[in-house]
């Protein structure tokens, strides 16, 4: 069986999972100092926080900032879940996940955090040139 389609247009996938994946690829935790999850596992909408916990534990996302700390509070008071992101500039972002989906949280997180990500540094200027490169 061939993996590729034999006929028809090859379109860009537009399902919800693909949208979530595209948002996850954009996530960067560089300006984030600490992330605190609070949820009640027996609550109706605890799935959102748990999915977010799993997504932000991906190695590629962790690589963006190893200094970012993750804290989890498992409560039993039937309260809705929340995610608090403390930024390095002193501000914090609180997501009340009672009526939010994972995609919405990721979109808002990227909207807040990505502008604070410093631009990538130009490393070529710091690398010293060799004699042959200088002659050229």
């Amino acid at each position, binding site marked *: 069986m061939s993996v590729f389609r034999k006929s028809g247009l090859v379109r860009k996938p537009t399902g919800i999972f693909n949208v979530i994946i595209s948002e996850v690829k954009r996530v960067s935790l560089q300006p984030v100092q600490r992330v605190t999850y609070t949820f009640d*596992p027996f609550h109706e909408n605890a799935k959102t926080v748990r999915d977010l916990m799993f997504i932000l534990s991906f190695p590629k996302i962790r690589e963006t900032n190893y200094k970012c700390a993750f804290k989890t509070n498992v409560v039993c008071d039937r309260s809705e879940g929340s995610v608090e992101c403390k930024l390095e500039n002193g501000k914090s972002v609180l997501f009340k996940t009672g009526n939010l989906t994972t995609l919405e949280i990721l979109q808002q997180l990227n909207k807040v955090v990505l502008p604070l990500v410093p631009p990538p540094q130009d490393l070529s200027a710091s690398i010293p040139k060799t004699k042959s490169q200088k002659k050229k």
Partner: protein
Amino acid sequence: MLFLAKSPTSKELCSSLWNLMVQQLRYSNRPNLKRPLPPHFNRARMLAVCEPVYPKPPRNCEKDALIVKNTENILQDNLYAIFLARKLRKDLQDHPVTCIFHYNSFTQHELINIRGSLYDMNFDMKIQPEINRNMVRLALTGTRWAPLIPLAESRTALGFCKGDDINKLLKALKKMPQFLLIAMVAYDRILSKNAVEELARLRDITNVRAQLCSTLALQSVTLSQNLTANINALSHSLTTYSQPGEDTRSSSSSSDSDSDSDSSSSSHSDGEKGK
């Protein structure tokens, strides 16, 4: 025998003997105990009335959930899923403590290290990662563990423990940060994380039971002590009197001999005086 007997008395005796022999020879063979003859109607009616009537056993919802076989459900549900559901329910029943974890992203190498650390700690916990929510729904619907079904919505793993040492379990959980404890099934109850921490703070139940027994027996012990106090004091004083030290024994013996001689001399003088 009758025709052999000549006198009437002997004839009567022979007839009674014959009847006796006839009565004793009622069964030619051994009585059939395996397939006994059905009793007479009256006896059978009496036996039927005397049969015990046991109350109906209480309804077992777990068994009913498995036994109720709807053909439509069987066709819709996968047979392998039913097998896994039964296996899950059996594991829940067999193990005294079952931990329910939320797991974050982990590699197989990390899982192997976790299993190795649990083995080093001598803590037997079988970790079953990636629980299927359909399997959990199939296994726990209609049972007393039904409140656990929503926990399987997201990334859930189960840990089946053969021991019930909660403190050891919490120490083991510190070595597996990828797995976050969210609930536990222990002592036939569903416990939240707060309840698990309270359970860990409780003392050992055997010690508490021993304390209770000693408290209940305190009154009888004090009564017996009060009753035997005087006897014990008397026996103690007698033992101390009967076993004095060496100096005291020698001094006491010499004093005894002097006293004896004095008493004998005084009695002798008294005797002489009397004469």
